[in-house]
């Protein structure tokens, strides 16, 4: 659906996007993740045809965004950063206006507007002025606008910024429901959001794409092996010996915990899951167990690791 090749965008003297390439397949939900100023919004603006690339090619559904701008714009639903709306219009009026601008006929725009208002939970506020809506509703109006002409590709720039947790939840649910029918590209600097909604993550930093993978793969790649935490009540020496004797354990770290329990942190070779082995060991010795968990490196760790400024890495 999207093919970006060697895209570079320079503003007067400053390179916002530096030679990036990526592709997005039909029906994927892809998250563009990066700190502020990483070039996410610029990439999206180029994709939406609002401004041209300095160099490189961008194709959406096989059309060049610069040369076949009209064809591309017909296929894209784009919600810019900060979701600009017309505060003096009513919700239904605004959506109808937008549908007509996007070339839908009178009857078609009517039915589509009713559809997206239902889809986005706006039916109750259809006659309210946009300027008087809460931020969560405004955001939904922006998303409804992006959806109204049934675009193949939906681009949402920071769709959940400034929302409260409930609103974030509902917007996230809305985005998840789009999967399959539409290709979705969303940007965010909030990690859990991308982790929960997207099937693939592109991590951008300083105008470049540093990583592109599924959230799970990124975790696996970055974490090396996963760690298992077990709290076991057993004689210390026996416990140490038993832990070291487990075949797949690379490193074991045992420390005293509350009561007569010991906390064992076991790192496995090749990311193997150690939990069944640990459980079998405990069963065999008749020890007591009160916790057995596998800790993940969250996307947050990965993100911080990747986007750490170079100066800090040197230190």
């Amino acid at each position, binding site marked *: 659906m999207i093919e970006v090749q060697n895209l570079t965008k320079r503003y007067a003297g400053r390179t916002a996007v530096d030679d990036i390439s990526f592709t997005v397949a039909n029906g994927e939900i892809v998250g563009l993740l990066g700190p502020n100023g990483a070039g996410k919004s610029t990439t999206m603006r180029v994709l939406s045809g609002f401004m041209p690339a300095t160099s490189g090619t961008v194709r959406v559904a096989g059309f060049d965004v610069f040369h076949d701008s009209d064809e591309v714009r017909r296929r894209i639903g784009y919600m*810019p950063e900060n979701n600009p709306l017309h505060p003096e219009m009513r919700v239904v009026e605004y959506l109808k206006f937008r549908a007509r601008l996007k070339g839908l006929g009178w009857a078609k725009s009517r039915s589509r507007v009713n559809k997206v208002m239902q889809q986005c939970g706006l039916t109750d506020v259809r006659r309210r002025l946009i300027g008087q809506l809460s931020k969560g509703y405004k955001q939904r109006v922006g998303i409804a606008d992006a959806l109204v002409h049934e675009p193949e590709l939906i681009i949402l720039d920071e769709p959940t910024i400034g929302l409260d947790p409930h609103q974030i939840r509902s917007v996230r649910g809305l985005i998840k429901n789009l999967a399959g029918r539409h290709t979705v590209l969303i940007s965010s600097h909030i990690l859990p959001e991308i982790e929960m909604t997207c099937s693939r993550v592109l991590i951008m930093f300083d105008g470049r794409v540093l990583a592109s993978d599924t959230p799970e793969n990124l975790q696996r790649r970055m974490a090396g092996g996963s760690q298992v935490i077990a709290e076991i009540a057993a004689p210390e020496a026996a416990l140490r010996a038993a832990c070291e004797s487990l075949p797949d354990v690379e490193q074991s770290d045992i420390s005293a915990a509350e009561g007569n329990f010991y906390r064992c942190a076991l790192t496995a070779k090749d990311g193997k899951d150690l939990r069944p082995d640990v459980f079998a060991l405990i069963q065999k010795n008749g020890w007591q167990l009160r916790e057995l968990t596998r800790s993940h490196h969250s996307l947050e760790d990965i993100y911080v690791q990747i986007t750490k400024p170079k100066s800090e890495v040197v230190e």
Partner: protein
Amino acid sequence: MSVFLTLLRRELGMFFYSIGGYVIIAAVTLLTSYSFVVLLHNLGTGPSTAPVTEMFYGTYFFWLIVLLAAPVITMRLFALEKASGTFETLMTTPIGDVQVVAAKFSAALIFFMISWLPLLACLFIVHHFTHQAEALDARTLGTTFFGIFLVGGLFVSLGCFASSLSRSQMAAAMISFVLGVGFFSLGFLALALPANSDWQTQVIAYFDLFKQMHDFARGVVDTRAVIFYMSATFIFLFLTLRVVESRRWK
């Protein structure tokens, strides 16, 4: 075409959704009524052979209205959309730059004409109480409003251009006011220069907005003036279009 009409309707609606539009209409009405008072005073001093429209134009409130109203009407057109970010949502719909410029210009011009409607009432009152058929005939009225339309087109296109240059409505209004006064002053220059036949004087004579509008108010339609106004309007609309397109060159 339907996209153009949708946009035109919205742009025109914007004037009436906000208090701003009504303030402009009220201000124009106030200035028109001042000129009406002067007009009545002039009528009281003695008989006149000029049509009422010419006498109205003779009160000089006309240019004050044009010079003040056009920048205020047009300042919002592009500047507000750029400042609020809706320019981005507008330009990422499959709509042409030409349609955007044309719709905004047409809406502003229509609103400009609407704000002139109170003048009609003033003229009809005079007509009614003078009991003279020659005081106001349909053709003079027509040419006067045609003149207002042409002058309005020029000053509104200046305003469109100014608004497309800036994100700030205030800056847009000031730019268009300065451009408008500059254009208007060329007319004074034409009056002040001695009438001779060198080409500079002749060129400046074409910019004599003062005399051209006077002709329209007298019921005279000079094709040179019509062509001048229309081409100047198109030049500024073309410049506006280039500014709107310029985001693609950056």
